[in-house]
């Protein structure tokens, strides 16, 4: 019997929660688990927006380099933490780092790998909890556009 192919979007904050809840629904040891960390453009866009004012300049090259290193460091840590968590639940995961809009990147990855299931943690949005919006942009895009079934996980 073909092993189930599962793509999991990991965000660096809820990887353990995501994999813990997923392990209650699925035997992770018997699935091909692909952990995807996507470095999206939104945080940088937020920084640009906040700094936008008359007379503001692009950042000096040394600062730009430091921020790039911080982003790389965060991505590497997020992936290694997710891999360790998956291994704790008996999985032998493959990990991948992508860049771009998280929703689109995950949908494309799921299609390329013929995934049977896409898993997303919701409620982990980097946004103020004001106004409507049960799903963040990535989860909403995946729910709307993924060709594979989508599993939305949340706390509680």
């Amino acid at each position: 019997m073909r092993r189930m192919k599962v793509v999991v979007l990991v965000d660096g904050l809820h990887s353990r929660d995501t994999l813990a809840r997923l392990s209650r629904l699925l035997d992770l040891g018997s699935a091909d688990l692909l952990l995807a960390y996507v470095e999206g453009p939104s945080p940088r866009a937020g920084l640009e927006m906040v700094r936008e004012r008359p007379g503001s300049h692009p950042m000096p090259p040394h600062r730009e380099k430091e921020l790039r290193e911080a982003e790389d460091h965060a991505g590497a840590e997020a992936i290694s933490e997710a891999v360790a968590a998956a291994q704790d639940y008996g999985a032998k995961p493959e990990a991948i780092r992508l860049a771009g809009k998280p929703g689109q990147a995950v949908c494309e990855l799921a299609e390329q790998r013929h995934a049977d299931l896409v898993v997303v943690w919701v409620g982990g949005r980097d946004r103020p909890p004001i106004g409507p919006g049960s799903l963040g942009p990535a989860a909403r895009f995946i729910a709307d556009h993924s060709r594979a079934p989508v599993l939305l996980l949340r706390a509680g």
Partner: protein
Amino acid sequence: MRTALAGGILTVALLLIVVRPWRVSEAWWAAGGAVLMVATGAISLGGAAGAIADEWDLFLFFAGLMVIAAVADMARFFDWAAALATAAGRGSGRRLLLSVLILGAAVTTFLSNDAAVIILTPVVYGIVTRLRLRVMPYLFAVSLTANAASMTLPISNPINVLTGDHLHAPLAGYEQHLFLASMASIAITVAVLMAIFWRSVGHDFVFDWRAAMATASADRGFFLPVLVALGALAVAYVIGSALLLPLGVIAVLGAAVLVAIALARRRLSREHLRAHVSPAVLVYVAGLFVMVHGAQDAGITGALVASATAEAQDASRAVISGLLGSAALSNVVNNLPGVLVFISGAQAGGVKASLQLPFLFGALAGADLGPNLTPVGSLSTMLWLVIVRRRGVEVSAWDFLRVGAIVAPLTLIAAGLLIALSFRQ
């Protein structure tokens, strides 16, 4: 005819400054408007030169401030201060948000809101990214607190220097009317942001603060003298404000001392100076002064302010008129041209002499706090949104506007009431 000409040029130039077609800097649109004012006779060449020369203190202040921020950044002062704030967070994302809010207020108070927003935000971004915490709450914290704290001292925002130069109010008088309003604005901003982001920042982190602070201050021969000079500069600003000394001169002297330290330690970096010192800002401000002066000569700003203060028969109402009018104008265009129009209108007789002080303190508060609603003026914020959407980015700008829609009205109401009350004593 002259009124229509000056009004037309000012309106079109302000529109171009906000829209910035072809991404041409606002400085050149302001300069173009000023040249057009002179060329069409809306203001004489001598009048234009006088409008710029009269504000020499503000130009010196802007120039000094940019150099001070550049040298402080060379010495990694902002990295050191952010590491200190992160240490104060003691591993809690919530405590870190609080300490970032306090750090933003402190940097704004002594180094101005521009230094906080332009230099401190990338430093905070780097630390928070490394700690794998949510980035936006901490960026909002610096940005919103930079406006909320920008009334604290006359040097906390260049707009205060501009207004102060016209009011000739010593520090005691300034603080008598603005201190409580400033503290209330900071407290409201801190409370609202802590409440809004309480759940979003509820993550713990591990941070080796000793290593971070040691790295930031590793070049002790450069860092320590700069730290001492910045402390001395803060004291000089307070004394200078109390004695009504020109703050621009103090800023330039402070910048000269810091550059001398950097030169002596062979640490002066052209890269930093290029990144932080922008002559275009001075061109922008000069262009605005000429255009607003032209509009003042044509009777436009006086009439505008007179209509805004028609109902203001006492100090409290003058405060509220100034505050609301300047906050509204700051959001339509930007706070510097906004407050300039109000100062010019008050000077031109748009406000009774006895109400000038409450009106201009109200206008100052409106221009300082108003931008929390739309950080770069409503139209340019909207254009910014369009640009990043085209780039396919899921933007946090709507989030910024939603948070600002709570913070800005609350701080404006509190500040307006407290400033109005200060005139009743």
